C-alpha cells in the first residue's frame, strides 16, 4: 500500500493541548505536553511502557483528569463541567486494549446503545447504522451473538464499529492490538487502515511499527511523560534524532 499519499490533512485544528501536566499523587506522569492535531491527521504514539502515552490519550476524552494546562477538543475546552465532558466524549470514539464490550448485550445492542441514548436516534435507524458499520468491519453475521462468543479480533472490530456508530470526529486507540493473537492483529489493523484511508482523525498508541509506517503522517515518541521526538514516519524510523529514540527503535526493530 502506498504511504500517506492519498491522505490529505486540513488546517483545521481537531485537538490542541497546551502545557498540559498531570500527576498521579506526587508522581509527575505527563510533563508540559504541547500537541496540536489537525483534522484528518493520523498520529501514532510510541514509547516504552510507563512513558505516559496511554495516559495522554485518556486525558483527551477525560477518562483521566489533567491538573494543569488546557485541552481543547473540536473547539470545546475540556473542563470539569460534566456537560462539556459528555459532549466531547460523544464526539471522540475510543478503543481499548481489552475491547471493553458490554458482555450482557448482544453485538447489535452494543452498537446501538450509545446512538439511542446519547444521540436520541430512533431504534430502527440506530440498528441500520450499526449494521452498516458492522458490515464495514466485516462481521454483520455476528450481530445477534454476545461478545463472549467472539474471538478477540472480532471483539476489537466490534469495539471499533461501536465507536463509529456515534459518528465520531476523532478516534483514539489505546493499544488496540496488544491483547490479540498474532493472527488476529492483522484483521484489526486492516480495519484501522481502512478507517485511516477514509480520512478519520486518529490518535493511536501502538507498538505496531509497520502500521505506523503505513498510515501515520506523524509519529510521536514519548518517554518519562514527555514528548521526546515527533516526525514524519519515514524520517522518524530512518533518521531518529534523539539518542533515546534511537535506543528504543534499535530494541523494537532489532529482531
Amino acid at each position, binding site marked *: 500500500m502506498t504511504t500517506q499519499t492519498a491522505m490529505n490533512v486540513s488546517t483545521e485544528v481537531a485537538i490542541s493541548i497546551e502545557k498540559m501536566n498531570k500527576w498521579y499523587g506526587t508522581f509527575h506522569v505527563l510533563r508540559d505536553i504541547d500537541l496540536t492535531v489537525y483534522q484528518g491527521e493520523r498520529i501514532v504514539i510510541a514509547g516504552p511502557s510507563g512513558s505516559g502515552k496511554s495516559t495522554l490519550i485518556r486525558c483527551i*476524552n*477525560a477518562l483521566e483528569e489533567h491538573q494543569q494546562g488546557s485541552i481543547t477538543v473540536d473547539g470545546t475546552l475540556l473542563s470539569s463541567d460534566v456537560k462539556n465532558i459528555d459532549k466531547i*466524549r460523544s464526539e471522540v470514539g475510543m478503543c481499548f486494549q481489552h475491547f*471493553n464490550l*458490554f*458482555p*450482557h448485550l448482544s453485538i447489535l445492542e452494543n452498537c446501538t*446503545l*450509545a446512538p439511542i441514548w446519547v444521540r436520541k436516534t430512533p431504534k430502527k435507524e440506530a440498528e441500520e447504522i450499526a449494521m452498516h458499520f458492522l458490515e464495514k468491519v466485516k462481521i454483520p453475521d455476528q450481530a445477534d451473538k454476545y461478545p*463472549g462468543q467472539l474471538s478477540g479480533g472480532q471483539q476489537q472490530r466490534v469495539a471499533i464499529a461501536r465507536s463509529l456508530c456515534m459518528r465520531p470526529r476523532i478516534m483514539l486507540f489505546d493499544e488496540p492490538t496488544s491483547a490479540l493473537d498474532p493472527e488476529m492483529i492483522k484483521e484489526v489493523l486492516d480495519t484501522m487502515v481502512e478507517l485511516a484511508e477514509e480520512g478519520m482523525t486518529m490518535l493511536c498508541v501502538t507498538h505496531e511499527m509497520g502500521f505506523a509506517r503505513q498510515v501515520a503522517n506523524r509519529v510521536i515518541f514519548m518517554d518519562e511523560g514527555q514528548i521526546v521526538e515527533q516526525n514524519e514516519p519515514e524520517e522518524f524510523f530512518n533518521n531518529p534524532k534523539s539518542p533515546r529514540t534511537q535506543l528504543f527503535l534499535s530494541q523494537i526493530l532489532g529482531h
Partner: protein
Amino acid sequence: MSDTHAHSAAFVRTEQVPPAPPPASATGPVKWAKDNLFSTPLYSVLTVAALYVIYVILGNTLPWIFSGVWNTSSLAECREVLDGVSGGCFSVLTERWNQLLFGFKYPVDQYWRPSLAFVLFFAAAAPVLFYKMPRKLLLFTAIFPFLAYWLIWGGTILTPILALVGVVAGYFVYQRFVAGSFAAGFFGGIAAAFVVWIIGGLLIPDNANEGAMLRAVPSRDLGGFMLNMMLGVACVSLSVPLGIALALGRQSDMPLIKWICVVFIEFIRGVPLITLLFVASVMLAYFFPPGTTTDLFLRVVIMITMFSAAYIAEVIRGGLAALPRGQYEAADSLGLDYPQAMRLIILPQALKISIPGIVNVAVGLFKDTTLVSVISMFDLVGMIRGPILASTEWNGVYWELLGFAALLFFVVCYGISQYSQWLERQLATDHR
C-alpha cells in the same frame, strides 16, 4: 490387490464394524451403583451406614405421619383415638387452619379479601420476575400495592387512591425536572407527592371509613402466615431499590452522600434486628410529629426494610466492585451520562453478579419476619406460640404446629431459591 501387500504397513478397511451395545457391566443401574455407591470398601461402608440412618429416620417418622389424626377437636381426643399408637395430632392444623393463615382477629367473613390479594400478587409479580412477559403488565404491578392495601385493610377507597395520586404526581414532577438535573427531579418528585398527600389527607373526612364498601380492619387484627407474606413482600420489594441507592451512594464522589450512606449501612448492620423491632414497637413514635399515630405495621416495615437494605447494599457493592474498570470507562467514553451508565451498563451486570447474595438476604429477611412475634404481633409463629399452644385444647402439640410452619417457610424459600437459579441461567450471556 495381490498378496504381497498383506504384510506391508498399508491398510484399507473393506467392511464397517457395526455399532454394538456396551456390555451390561459398563452401563445401567449396576454400573451407576458400582461407580457411585460401592467404588471403594470405605464408600461401601458409608453407603450401608447412610442407608441405615435413612431407614431409622423414615421408619419412625412415616408411621407417625401416616397414622396421624386429622379430625378431632382437642389433643385429649387425639390421644384417645390413637390409643397409645405413635401418631401425629394434625387435627390442630385443620381446626385452626384459618387462624394459622389469617390470625385470630381478622373478620372471618372477610377472608376472601386477603385471599384475593394473594392471588393477584402472582399476577403483579409475574412481569417483574419473568422479563419476557409483556411490559404493559407492569402497569398492574404498579397499581397492585394500592389495590392490595385496600383489599386487606379495607376502609375508604379514598386512602389508596390518594396515595396513588401522590405517587403519580411525584412521578410527573420528576419527569418534568429530571432533564435539568437528577437531584431537582428526585427531590421535586418527593416534595410533590408529600404536598398531594398532606392536602388530600385534610380533604378526606374523618368518618370516611363508616359505610365504606369494604369494612375497615385495623393493623393489629392482621396475623398468621398472611402477616409474614405481607411483611416479606413489602420489605423485599422496598429494600432492593433502597439497597441499590445505598450501594451507589457509598461509591459516590460527593462526600456528604457517601458518608450518609456509610454511616447508615454500618450502623444498621451493627444492630440486631430484634433491637430495631423493639425500637419500632415502642420508640419510633418519638421520631414522628407529636399527635400522629403511625401504624405498627408501617413501623415494622420501615425497620425491616432498613435492616435488609443495608445488607443488600453491601451485596450490590460487591457486585459493583467485581466489574472491570473497563466497563465504566467504555460507558464513559461513549458519552453516556452517570444515570445512563448505571442503568444500562453497570447495574444490569452488577445485579446479575449479586443475584445469589440478594436472594440470600431476601430469604433470610422472609424468615426473620417471624421475629415480629416478640413484639406481640401474631404472625404464624406468634399464633402458634400464643393463642394456639396456650389454648387448653391444643397445649402440647409442638411437632405438628412447628413442623407445619417449617414446611410453609421451606416451600416459599425453596421456590425463591429455584427461581433465582433459573434467572441466573437465563441471564448467563457472558459465556465465561
